[in-house]
Every structure is written in structure tokens, then in C-alpha cells.
């Protein structure tokens, strides 16, 4: 056995805390270790070449690389040893960076630990055998979850590459939050003018199947071969027949909250959320429908000229196969009401969120673009904007920056002046964060050309007085208390994860952070991948971001999906379970515990029934390994022998 040990310095990331020379010396004193060296950056080209050279010159048969997390570079180094002619699995990585140099400060302590970890790696690789991947065919179809701008962009990019896409949206129309915006910063482009053509394109694309009022119910399978149950929710409208004439909405006597308009104005129990909705099909909300509440109505059925209303409709579950999944479920605004009693906690009608104000400004909004404050319909003259409500505020448990609030406030201040020329906008801010292209200039314009008064400080209290609102705050630059008599107060509320994000993450087996935003596999190297193979992220479901970043990330996800599915088959991990069938007693405890149904019974020539692992189904969790009474089923790469050797080496 000829073992080589390579200790990465990672510049000073490792070398500053771990004495790599000592680790090399310790390696050289181990049995069968013929070669050990430290390398400044092992993952770099010269670093990898040094590994290859050593393998070839010294005839190494096994390699230990002590460097960073295997999450980072395990595949890199597998390929490296593969290029040197070794089986890729004859390389063992030990993590002396995230598990050692980065979390310890004492050099002796860190060096001791690094030596232990290196020795553990040698013990493990000593018992490693060459492993070979198998391939499984992939389903060349893609599921995109969420029909906002991110989902639309990803779906279009993937569909343009010739792959069939199913775009699932839980609401009755695609378009997402962007469809609710009036204008977009920093160009003041009309939001729907940019978005609606894309929505229509998605609906008409030959490779895109649109499923609105639908949700992902369950996900089974793995990369390349997912089985997804999709719940098609009953809308009581036959989508094939509905022409979008809106007569039902006009005649419907049941009032319902207007979700598209963020609660400004009212909608009907049966409605099309907005005139540019795609598909232009009505949907009935049973919880607001008189027929379902009181058992008497059916006006819509009577007036519908297309005979599209069907009260008997029930939810259906459709199961489809997909090779990859793009998650683009977006965000919703943080519900500020409970956390900010000093701002009225939702009790003052003229304290609105920026999204509500956006709807008031929008020509397609409830007032046709004429700004009227909710309490008395008066045109507001003094408008106060408060930034960072539910963001950058530790006191309400939301320390994160929403990354767009500064920008959309500047936009709305500009739009306010355009709508109401004799108005005055005041903006309370903490900092102005305007990092994007053209953003800083835009916020300056709001102040210089549109006269918005920016006050650096927080608002402590809002209280009603003579039909108006008094906003009490501090201007920290002049160190003065400020009181503003406001007609309307607009809160720049931060981003929150979409409702049910955590639940969806569990269905998809992906991880999420404390705000329920989905976690990317690596922030820089794998920014659109998740920890689950074949599941990708796009847009604000991964964290707050603006439209340009969302679209860029959606296209990035699409590129990843296209790359993945461009191959006809996928290599599976060879780290799967294997049965020693000569010693198998045929008790099938392994089959009982296997989460993937990867274990079958086969008959040997002597008539005995024994367990057999279906490699393409096995995901390598090792649950069977522990359950097997005679210990004859073993997870390759994590055998009992290897784990015991590691344990003993560490405790020697």
C-alpha cells in the first residue's frame, strides 16, 4: 500500500493557525505513507499538478488531502486523482480549515487536531476500495415552482433550449409581485409593460405547460428522476371554457379582499385578479362565495355566457415526472402590524405599506392611478416614507436588509411628485443603500429634482391628530426632534419568505435559513444549487433581491438545468449499499427500513432468497447497514471497518 498525504496551506487560511510542516512530519511517520508535502493552494492548477506528479512518480495508490470542507472541493480532488490514473474514490479529504484552522486560535491545539484528522483520513483511505459509478437515464422535463418573474424567466430560458417545462403557480395568474408594481427603479419603466409580454410568451410557448391555482403536494425521487404530485385546486371554473369576459365578476354579489391590490379596494368572490392576468380565467374563492357560505346564490353560473362555472369541481392530484426542479416561490412583505404598535399597528387607515401605495399609484390600481388616501379619499400633500420597517431592526427579530427598500422609496417619492406636483415627500432612513447600477444617481435625483426631503433617523411614533397623522422622529444629522404633519404614511416593509416556504422546503428536501429563505449550496461557487441534487433556486425565495438580480439568477438556474439535462444519463454516486449475498440470511430487515425501496429479494441458484440493492435507487444513507443483524449489508465508502478504524485512530 502506497499512501500520499497532501496538506493544503490555503494561503494563510490554514497555515496561519495550523503548522502544516508538523502535519507533514506526522504523516511521514505513519506506516505506508510514502509521500507527504504541504502545498500553498492545493486546489489551484500547480497544486493539483503537484498531487498528480507525486502519484505518478511515487506510484501512490491512495491519497489523503487535508484541506477545506469536502463540500467545497471533494469533486475537484476526485477528478485530480482520476487524472493521475487512480480510481477517484481512492482519495480521502479531511477538513482542516472549517473544522480546524478557522475555528481555533491556538496553534498547538489546531495543529494537534489537524494531525488527528489527517491520521483519521489515512486510516480510512487504507480500507477504501475502488468504486465505480453507474448511470441512470434522466427525464428531460423540468418543473418550475412559482410563476413570478423568476419562474417565468427560468421557464422561458429552459423552454427555449427545447426542454418541456411545467410552470406551477399557486395563485390564479402568473406574474407574481412584479405584476403588482407600477414602475420599476432606476429607469421608471412601467412594470407591466416589461412583464406582461413575458407572461403571454410563457403561456403561448409550445414547450411550457402552465398550471395555475396549483401547488406542489409531494416530491419523490432524486436528481434526474423526480415524481411530483401536483394539486390542481378547484376554482369552480372550467379553464377550457372561460373566455375571461369578467361578467361573472361584475355580477357577483360576494365581496372578497383584493389580494392583487394588497388589500386596497375590494374584489369579488369570483374574479380575475387583474386585467392582464395570464391565463385570463376567472377563479372562485369558496371562502367568500355566498353559495358555499350560505348555500344560496349561483349568480355567476346564470350569467356566464360560456357555461364555464362548475360548482362540483374538486381538487385533483396529478403526478408528473421531472428531471430537474427550479424553485422560484418569491417573497411576501413582512407583516408589520404586530411588531410596530407605535406606528398604529394597522389601526390607522392612512398608514399603508409601500406595496399598497404602489397599487394606489398604478393606473391599473383601484383608483385608476389617482392617489387617494384610504381614510377619506383626499389627495395627500404631505407623504412620509419610513424605511426599514421589519428589516434592519433587531428589536423585532429582523436584522436582515431588504436590499430594495431605499430604492423603491426613492421611486415612490419621485412618482408622488409626478402624480401630485404640489406634494412634499419626507423620507426617514437609516442609510441609503443604493448599490446597483445607476441606483445612487437615482436616489440623488429623488432629492435634487423631485424635492424629497431625506431625514436620517428613525420614527418613534405616529399618532392621529385632526384627521391627519403626526409623525415623530429624529433627524440624527441635525440632532433635532422632528414632527411632521402627514396626510399619508408609507412604510417600506422588509421581505419575508413566502407563506409555506418552510413546508415546501421540507417537501423538496432543501434547507432554509432562520427567515425561511432557501439556502444555496455555496454562496459563491454554487449560488443557484441547493443541497439536493437537481433542485435549483431562482429569485427572492433565496433571499431579498431586486428584479435585475432575480432575472439574472433565474437565467443562471436555467443554464444549470439545461446543462444537467443535456446529458442523456446521469452518473450516480457509487457510495451505495452492497450485500454480501453468501452470508445474507434473507430476513429483509434492510428492505423494511430502506426509505427508497432500493432493496429487492433475489433468488440465488441454491434457491435461497437474499437481499439485493438496486444501485440506481439507493441514495447511500446507510440505514440498512445498521439494521442488518448479521452485518452483511454495507455502505460503500462508509463501511463498518472504515468507521471503526477512524474511531480507533482518533482515540489511539
Amino acid at each position: 500500500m502506497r499512501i500520499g498525504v497532501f496538506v493544503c496551506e490555503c494561503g494563510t487560511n490554514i497555515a496561519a493557525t495550523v503548522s502544516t510542516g508538523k502535519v507533514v512530519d506526522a504523516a511521514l511517520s505513519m506506516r505506508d505513507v510514502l509521500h507527504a508535502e504541504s502545498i500553498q493552494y492545493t486546489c489551484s492548477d500547480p497544486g493539483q499538478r503537484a498531487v498528480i506528479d507525486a502519484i505518478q512518480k511515487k506510484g501512490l495508490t491512495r491519497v489523503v488531502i487535508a484541506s477545506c470542507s469536502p463540500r467545497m472541493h471533494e469533486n475537484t480532488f476526485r477528478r485530480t486523482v482520476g487524472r493521475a490514473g487512480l480510481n477517484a474514490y481512492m482519495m480521502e479529504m479531511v477538513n482542516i480549515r472549517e473544522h480546524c484552522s478557522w475555528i481555533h486560535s491556538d496553534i498547538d491545539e489546531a495543529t494537534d487536531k489537524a494531525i488527528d484528522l489527517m491520521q483519521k483520513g489515512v486510516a480510512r483511505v487504507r480500507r477504501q476500495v475502488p468504486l465505480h459509478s453507474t448511470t441512470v437515464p434522466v427525464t428531460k422535463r423540468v418543473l418550475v415552482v412559482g410563476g413570478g418573474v423568476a419562474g417565468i424567466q427560468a421557464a422561458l430560458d429552459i423552454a427555449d433550449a427545447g426542454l418541456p417545462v411545467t410552470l406551477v403557480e399557486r395563485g390564479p395568474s402568473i406574474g407574481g409581485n412584479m405584476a403588482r408594481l407600477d414602475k420599476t427603479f432606476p429607469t421608471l419603466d412601467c412594470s407591466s409593460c416589461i412583464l406582461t409580454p413575458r407572461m403571454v410568451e410563457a403561456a403561448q410557448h409550445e414547450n411550457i405547460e402552465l398550471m395555475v391555482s396549483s401547488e406542489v403536494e409531494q416530491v419523490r425521487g432524486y436528481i434526474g428522476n423526480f415524481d411530483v404530485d401536483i394539486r390542481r385546486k378547484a376554482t369552480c371554473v372550467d379553464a377550457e371554457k372561460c373566455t375571461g369576459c369578467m361578467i361573472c365578476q361584475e355580477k357577483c354579489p360576494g365581496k372578497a379582499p383584493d389580494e392583487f391590490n394588497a388589500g386596497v379596494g375590494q374584489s369579488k368572490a369570483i374574479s380575475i385578479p387583474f386585467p392582464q392576468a395570464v391565463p385570463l380565467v376567472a377563479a372562485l374563492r369558496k371562502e367568500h362565495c355566498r353559495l358555499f357560505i350560505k348555500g344560496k346564490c349561483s349568480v355567476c353560473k346564470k350569467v356566464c355566457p360560456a357555461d364555464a362555472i362548475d360548482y362540483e369541481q374538486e381538487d385533483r392530484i396529478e403526478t408528473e415526472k421531472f428531471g430537474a426542479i427550479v424553485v422560484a416561490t418569491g417573497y411576501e412583505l413582512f407583516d408589520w402590524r404586530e411588531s410596530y404598535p407605535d406606528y398604529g399597528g394597522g389601526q390607522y387607515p392612512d398608514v399603508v405599506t409601500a406595496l399598497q401605495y404602489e397599487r394606489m399609484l398604478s393606473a391599473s390600481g383601484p383608483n385608476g392611478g389617482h392617489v387617494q388616501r384610504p381614510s377619506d379619499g383626499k389627495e395627500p400633500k404631505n407623504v412620509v416614507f419610513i424605511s426599514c420597517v421589519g428589516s434592519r431592526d433587531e428589536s423585532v427579530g429582523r436584522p436582515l436588509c431588504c436590499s430594495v427598500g431605499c430604492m423603491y422609496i426613492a421611486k415612490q417619492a419621485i412618482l408622488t411628485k409626478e402624480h401630485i406636483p404640489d406634494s412634499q415627500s419626507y423620507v426617514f432612513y437609516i442609510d441609503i443603500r443604493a448599490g446597483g447600477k445607476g441606483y445612487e444617481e437615482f436616489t440623488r435625483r429623488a432629492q435634487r429634482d423631485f424635492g424629497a426631503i431625506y431625514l436620517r433617523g428613525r420614527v418613534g411614533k405616529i399618532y392621529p391628530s385632526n384627521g391627519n397623522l403626526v409623525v415623530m422622529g429624529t433627524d440624527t444629522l441635525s440632532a433635532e426632534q422632528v414632527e411632521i404633519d402627514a396626510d399619508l404614511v408609507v412604510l417600506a416593509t422588509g421581505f419575508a419568505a413566502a407563506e409555506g416556504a418552510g413546508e415546501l422546503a421540507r417537501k423538496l428536501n432543501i434547507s432554509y435559513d432562520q427567515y425561511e429563505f432557501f439556502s444555496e449550496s455555496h454562496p459563491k461557487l454554487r449560488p443557484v444549487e441547493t443541497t439536493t441534487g437537481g433542485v435549483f433556486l431562482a429569485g427572492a425565495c433565496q433571499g431579498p433581491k431586486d428584479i435585475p438580480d432575480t432575472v439574472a439568477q433565474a437565467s443562471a438556474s436555467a443554464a444549470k438545468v439545461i446543462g444537467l439535462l443535456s446529458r442523456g444519463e446521469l452518473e450516480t454516486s457509487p457510495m451505495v449499499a452492497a450485500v454480501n449475498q453468501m452470508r445474507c440470511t434473507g430476513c429483509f430487515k434492510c428492505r423494511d427500513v430502506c426509505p427508497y425501496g432500493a432493496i429487492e429479494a433475489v433468488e440465488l441458484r441454491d434457491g435461497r432468497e437474499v437481499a439485493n440493492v438496486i444501485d440506481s435507487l439507493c441514495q447511500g444513507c446507510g440505514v440498512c447497514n445498521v439494521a442488518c443483524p448479521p452485518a452483511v449489508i454495507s455502505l460503500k465508502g462508509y463501511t463498518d471497518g472504515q468507521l471503526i478504524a477512524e474511531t480507533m485512530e482518533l482515540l489511539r
Partner: protein
Amino acid sequence: MAGTARMKQPGDLRVIRLPCTGRVNPLLILKAFMEGADGVLVSGCHPGDCHYNVGNYHARRRLELLQRMLPAFGIDPGRFHYTWVSASEGSRWAGVVSDFTRRIEALGKIGAEVPANALAKAEQTAMTDATGKTTS
């Protein structure tokens, strides 16, 4: 995450990598104690959040059983802990490691509290009990 965020942790812990807590054989934990480990910590994905669907449910049953059996082997059950920390909970991980290390430091070196032959006896019992026959 704890490592990436450079959260300082006590240096007494050595990590053995496994695909899933479902791969953790309770016998391996006993083996570690027999080899002189002062404490053993098992950490995996939260129940309901298993990367391998249900592996941690299997783990929870096995590890809970082990926890209860430890006194029979003469091992203070405080030396063993299983917990659930997700990949994004870096600060939680750092906290778990620190708390566990402190606890083990308070308990001192293993073997100090029981005579050496009791451990050997426990080893024999462990092997016999868990598999139904002696494997050693």
C-alpha cells in the same frame, strides 16, 4: 456554516463524517467509549427534515435506546448526547459543541468513575445484547 463563519469552538472535538445519522451504529458509539472517548456527540438533520427522508427517525430510536442502556454498561449517560443541527444553523452548532465540551470536562476522564474491568464486562454485554449473539 459554523466553520465558514469562523465561530470559535473548543478544540477537543473530532468529527467523523457520515452520510446520515441513520448510518450511526450504536455499537460504534460503545466502541468509541471502549477506546477511551470521554464523550460522544451525534448530530444530524432535524427530524422531519432528513436529507434521506427518514434516516434520523431510525437514528432517534436507536440512539434513545442506547442513551438509556448506557448506565448498564457503566457509562455515565451524560457522556453521550444526540442532537439535531441543520446545515444553516452555524451558531447553534458552535453552541452545542461548547456546551457538550463543558459538560464532558465537568465529568472528567472516562474510566475514572468505574473500575477498568467493569468496562470490559460492559463491552461483552454490549456486543451480546445488541446483536443477539457475541460478535467479538
